């Protein structure tokens, strides 16, 4: 982000199928959020424990 490298965003970053990297980021964000929602619906206690307890290793 702080780098001066220009990310391939906007029209310039479009793939052959026409999806810009900005849109791709957005769609991945939605997919990740859906994955979290589905996991939380399937096993809320396990998800909660993972992120409030198990990941804190020290």
């Amino acid at each position: 982000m702080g780098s001066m490298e220009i990310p391939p965003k906007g029209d310039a970053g479009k793939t052959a199928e026409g999806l810009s990297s900005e849109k791709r980021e957005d769609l991945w964000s939605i997919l990740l959020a859906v994955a979290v929602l589905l996991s939380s619906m399937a096993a809320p206690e396990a998800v909660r424990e993972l992120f409030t307890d198990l990941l804190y290793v020290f």
Partner: protein
Amino acid sequence: MSWIRSLVVPDWPKFIPGLLVCIAFALVVMNVDHLLGKYHKANTASIKLPRLEQQLNTLSEGDDNPRKVAELNKAIAGHRKALEAVGGQVGQRWAWATFLHETCQLSYVALLLLGGILIRNTVGVAKVFLPGVGIARPFIKPGIIILGVHYVWNDVLKVGGVGLVLTAVFIFGTAIIVMWLCRKFGVSDGLGGIMGAGTGVCGVSAIIATSPVVKAKPLDIAYAIGTILLFGTLMLFLMPYVGKALGVTEPQFGAWAAVAILNTAQLVAAAEWYGDEARDTAVLINAARIMLIPFIVMYTVWFYDLRAQYGEKSSFLTTVRDKFPVFILGFFLLVILNSFHFAALGGPGDAGTPFWAMNAVYKWFFAIGFAGIGLSISIDDMRRAGGLAFAIGASSALAKAALGLIAVVVIGTELLRVTGGH
């Protein structure tokens, strides 16, 4: 099927090493933050417990206030639990933890940003990690979507409505002034256009979105991004201290950050640093703000009179379709679901429900994104930003920050407070 194929990031293996570094950095810092918090709580408990127990004894003898006795018992139980968590006893002190956690405000946000900057500018980040470090920043987006479980529709109408008016006035005000000043002082249309959009609306995203419209050169884009990030970095570190010094409340700070800081990741970082209420307000107003990106692109087209070249293929509708930040729909979907209080989904405070579980996840996405920001901030790159365009962009952004502060103080805390339905 083609759009599914296009979801795959070209050359994706090159992003993996840097992304893993950011995840590892976030994991370590979240653990350090957790540890500091744990010892700070234990230190507070060690100091407070004798006094609370004495109060309880006095009250129990009198037996005239059962509610107060119950409250004291609850507080004592909480403090004992905090001491047990570190295996400590009353009388032990962990003043270092209180100093770092409370006095220095070293939350996970500060640790990731300051630590990342320190690493990047001392030991450095190997070239193999740079692409992945750059791609970590957008991990803030799924965090923002998940944060939707904190809001109800009334919050969106109240805070989002105020925020929309506030940001619309400031966005277009700043963009108009910067573009006009750049033209007046002979800055090229390419640089002036993206500087105006960048300082007015959403920083890097707006620069990228408007760059093809004004036919900005790669150097112009790099220059404008450098200016926006330099200013955003300065504000990110300064604003929480200015806010505390001026006694700005958390909801007011959240609105101020959403108006003054030009980059989503940086404003979320500043607001999260300031407090939970500040973050909730900032994220909601930012959601309103980034929806204005297509409009700023249209304004840029109009200002630089490029409709003849650009307008053929870019009507208002296609601009909205191309530039609309789709991920924000996920955020609003969760706000709507939370507003209906579906029993199957629960709420962030209802133990054992899906939304309660999700509420524990967003900070981890933020942490990976903040790790990406910290490790990306190169002081050498920042030095390259300078000159007239920087002076115009920075002074306009500074004026926007000052006026934004006045505006949020005038609006007051209540209109900017997110209730979450409580």
